[in-house]
């Protein structure tokens, strides 16, 4: 059975049909990628999966248990953690405290929180900056902090929202390694939204391509890059979208 299954998910914002009848399955232990141009509905999908917004229709099952109608903080309690596309550190807290807050929910036993946070910072490569104010971190470090805080909730499923956005190539390589390591060494199941195609294709085992809120293709990275619909929706846009 798949760890997360999404069935016929639907969400409208007024006249905008942001997510249209999306179905997908995330298998235990895989890295599933979600591909799509800007505004395709990827972040809305994350918000639906994590209870930040409620869908109009459809079903989300984690290990067979419905996540619909469960408050966002309780979804985390069930083992689904997310990062945000724009980094949102707790301003006024140190890097270490930021990570500790991730372990203060009911899912994690409240022992050795500081030690645990130090270990996570070590893992994401922020060990030397534990006592720095979080608002002083560089963009790349903020990404690592986001991931460390998400890991502090001890998730079974990690949802990463454009983790490479705004990073330089060196930082991207390091973060790719970290994601690969979380997957291979800890067996973490990861759902990944990303725009940086090259790194994305190397990381994921399966891809779901989305455009205008709909699934337009599903397959391995090799299949997806040859799919004419994907090329039209995503790669085709590269001609005009210089920023991507």
């Amino acid at each position, binding site marked *: 059975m798949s760890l997360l299954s999404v069935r016929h998910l639907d969400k409208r914002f007024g006249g905008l049909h942001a997510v249209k009848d999306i179905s997908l399955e995330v298998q235990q232990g895989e890295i599933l990628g979600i591909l799509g141009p800007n505004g395709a509905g990827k972040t809305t999908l994350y918000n639906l999966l994590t209870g930040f917004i409620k869908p109009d229709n459809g079903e989300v099952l984690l290990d067979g248990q419905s996540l619909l109608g469960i408050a966002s903080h309780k979804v985390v309690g069930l083992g689904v953690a997310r990062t945000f596309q724009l980094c949102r550190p707790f301003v006024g807290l140190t890097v270490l405290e930021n990570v500790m807050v991730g372990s*203060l929910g009911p899912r994690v036993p409240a022992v050795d929180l500081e030690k645990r946070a130090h270990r996570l910072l070590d893992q994401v490569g922020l060990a030397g900056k534990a006592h720095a104010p979080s608002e002083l971190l560089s963009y790349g470090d903020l990404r690592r902090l986001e991931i460390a805080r998400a890991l502090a909730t001890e998730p079974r499923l990690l949802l990463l929202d454009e983790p490479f956005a705004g990073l330089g190539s060196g930082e991207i390589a390091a973060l790719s390694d970290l994601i690969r390591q979380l997957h291979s060494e800890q067996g973490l199941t990861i759902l990944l939204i990303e725009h940086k195609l090259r790194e994305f294709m190397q990381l994921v085992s399966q891809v779901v391509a989305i455009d205008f809120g709909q699934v337009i293709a599903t397959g391995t990275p090799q299949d997806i890059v040859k799919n004419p619909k994907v090329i039209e929706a995503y790669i085709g846009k590269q001609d005009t979208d210089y920023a991507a």
Partner: protein
Amino acid sequence: MQLKHIDRGGALVAIAVMAGLPLVFDSRYLMGVLTVAAIYGIWSVSWDFMSGLTGRENFGHSLFIGVGAYAAGFLNTAWGVNAWWSLPAGMLAAVVFALIMGIPTLRLKGPYFALAMLSGAVIMQRLMLIFWEYTGGEEGINGIEPLIRSPLHFYWFVLGMLVLTVVLLGGLARSHWGLILKAIRGDEATCQAAGLNVTYYKIASLVISAAFAGMGGALYAHYQLQVSPQLFAVVTSITIITMVYVGGMSTIYGPIGGALLLTLMTELLRNFGEWRLMVYSVALILILFFLPQGLVAPTWQKIRHRLAGGQP
């Protein structure tokens, strides 16, 4: 480790000075001023615990103060209950109002909580006038018994309650609980993504804050031996917020200094006659303009670092 000892030493010296002042200067007037300052200290520390830590500003702390004071007044005069029941009764009444105000408004983002607290206090002030048969209208409730006959002993008791408030709320603020409240000030959505029930923590911290404000209200009722609708006045809430800012927001101990400073300043400026309010306002504006972090807590931080030998 050393900084901890310096903090403890500083606190003991401050308590000793506060407790000893009325023994050195034998003046009823000074004792009155210090008693009021200590009660304001309880109010501003309790405000700082909720609003300072979570960043959700409460513009109607006087609601909890007034409710606590009236509960004390009612029990003591209308029902003749022993004065010592006033403190738990004042706390309980304020907690009930914290739940009534907090549950609907703290779920929402935006200014609803601040506005609801502001209007809640104003509405209660009006209700005290409308239901004058029960509340005494403008006159309020008179003839409340003193808690302790000797003004000096009452002052020491109030000081003790202030110390208790700071120890309890300061301890909570340094615990994981306080960390969660500070994280809520940072970003609510990220707190939810960390698995924290943000609404629960906000309401619970308001309840705790209200309990201590209500207790302070009951103490004030037994100091004035009278309660009036003026207790609900917006100006009381604003004064408390100013004390917190001058003392140093979200430090818990700083607001006591702010309360002491502002209460003393009000009294010392009496010589200025009708210029008093203006001098007071200008002094406040200057403090807040040049020291946005406050005056008391940052000053203490500097002193303790110097005492510790310069290391930060």
